[in-house]
């Protein structure tokens, strides 16, 4: 395989990956990866969520941590030295707590050294076009837009028209379980998510929107990576697989890099 993937083609600031595997993590130094994508950050600290935050599902889990994070400023201060030195592109993921947060968040990153791009976490109740336009007005950094499965196909084109450079399909699907008589909602993770994401990705690829597509959901093996690439993805994001088995994710990245070098 020959990899040099441009996630912001025709934009004033490019975002080139040398490897199609992007890892969602605050820091990563164990094997070659295309990019590091941070967990989603908000304008202010967020640490409270109702228990249980994690609920087992067959072959996966439901997470309700309400995007806990230290807030964008603290996180940037903590990591910017490492980012400045990083040869791997750093993409900072953002989630808004209020409709007008996007511009502030983007402006904070525009000043942060070592940041190569932004990933916006949207959901169906967020006005996606307004979020992207606010962000675009505040920064020239490439914008990846991570869509919810529910409406990814419906809003994909509008997101690109509003200024997004690439689409990430998708955020983890929502689910619920009843625990001790109470309904508990969250986002679902695990290998079983993969067919849903693959289906959505393939449908969006068929729209031929002319923008890079990044697949995210249930990826645990080299075969999974190849399946997404063949279904229309230009790159993939891996999230929970490394919590479960970081060593095998490192091997996966090596193997993909080896395929490129051959």
């Amino acid at each position: 395989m020959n990899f040099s993937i441009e996630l912001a083609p025709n934009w004033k600031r490019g975002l080139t990956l040398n490897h199609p595997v992007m890892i969602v993590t605050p820091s990563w130094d164990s094997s070659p990866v295309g990019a590091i994508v941070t967990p989603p950050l908000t304008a202010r600290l967020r640490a409270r969520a109702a228990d249980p935050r994690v609920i087992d599902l067959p072959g996966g889990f439901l997470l309700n941590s309400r995007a806990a994070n230290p807030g964008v400023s603290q996180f940037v201060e903590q990591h910017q030295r490492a980012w400045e030195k990083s040869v791997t592109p750093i993409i900072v993921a953002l989630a808004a707590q209020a409709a007008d947060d996007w511009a502030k968040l983007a402006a904070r990153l525009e000043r942060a050294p070592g940041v190569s791009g932004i990933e916006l976490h949207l959901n169906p109740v967020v006005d996606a076009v307004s979020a992207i336009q606010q962000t675009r007005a505040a920064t020239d950094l490439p914008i990846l837009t991570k869509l919810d499965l529910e409406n990814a196909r419906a809003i994909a084109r509008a997101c690109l028209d509003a200024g997004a450079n690439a689409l990430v399909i998708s955020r983890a699907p929502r689910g619920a379980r009843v625990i001790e008589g109470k309904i508990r909602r969250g986002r679902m993770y695990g290998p079983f998510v993969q067919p849903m994401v693959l289906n959505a990705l393939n449908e969006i690829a068929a729209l031929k929107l002319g923008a890079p597509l990044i697949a995210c959901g249930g990826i645990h093996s080299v075969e999974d990576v190849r399946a997404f690439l063949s279904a229309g993805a230009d790159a993939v994001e891996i999230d929970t697989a490394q919590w479960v088995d970081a060593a095998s994710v490192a091997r996966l990245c090596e193997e993909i890099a080896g395929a490129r070098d051959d």
Partner: protein
Amino acid sequence: MQIQTRIIANERLWANIQTITVTAPDLARTIRPGQFVLARAPNNFDPYLRRVLIPLQTRDDQIQFAMDAADPLVARAYPDAILDLLAPLGRAIHFDSNARHILLATDGARIAPLIFLAHAAIQSGRAVVLVARQTNASPIFPAALLPEEIEYHTTNENEAWMDADALAWADAIYACGTRAAYRELFDAISHARYRVPREFARVWMEAAMPCGVGECFACAIESARGFALTCQHGPFFDLVDI
């Protein structure tokens, strides 16, 4: 550090506590009280996430861990099987050299972290008192399963968790309980000693820990010092910060 260990034994210790013993020479030497490991059966997604195992004691190159007996990993952790560990995780507890009297307290929620602490305190010549409060949800831990050197007291839900004498005797306190119990502890210490000094009392914060290494933020808490991760800054936190 991700390591593969071999399971020596998988036994019910008592009530809902299961013990898993593994051979792990390096880890047995380095793991400290206050720390934990995350475990999974290799090549198996049922359960998908790693599970929290808390060291109970180490012997030569073996470690005995405690875990929830109802956890699905128990059925996969049969003797001679491989257990994949991410370890050691969490912040280690080091006793202050002036802390000679160690008071341990559980309100029934957990006891394993206290037992490992007790072994370390006893080995370093410290006096240890353990106070266990019986609740409806949890009966009293049997004294026969504790090291002989521990002075063991039990109370019930209608009594104070720790009395003023015990609080005055202690040089350091380590507690496992609910947030409400920690509030009660804070008030009791303030009352007995007029203030709660920093680094005097540490409390175990119960949290789901999917990654154990600061990646997922699912274990986040808001402490007096701001955003903190149970897996990295805890699970024992200074009571003053909680």
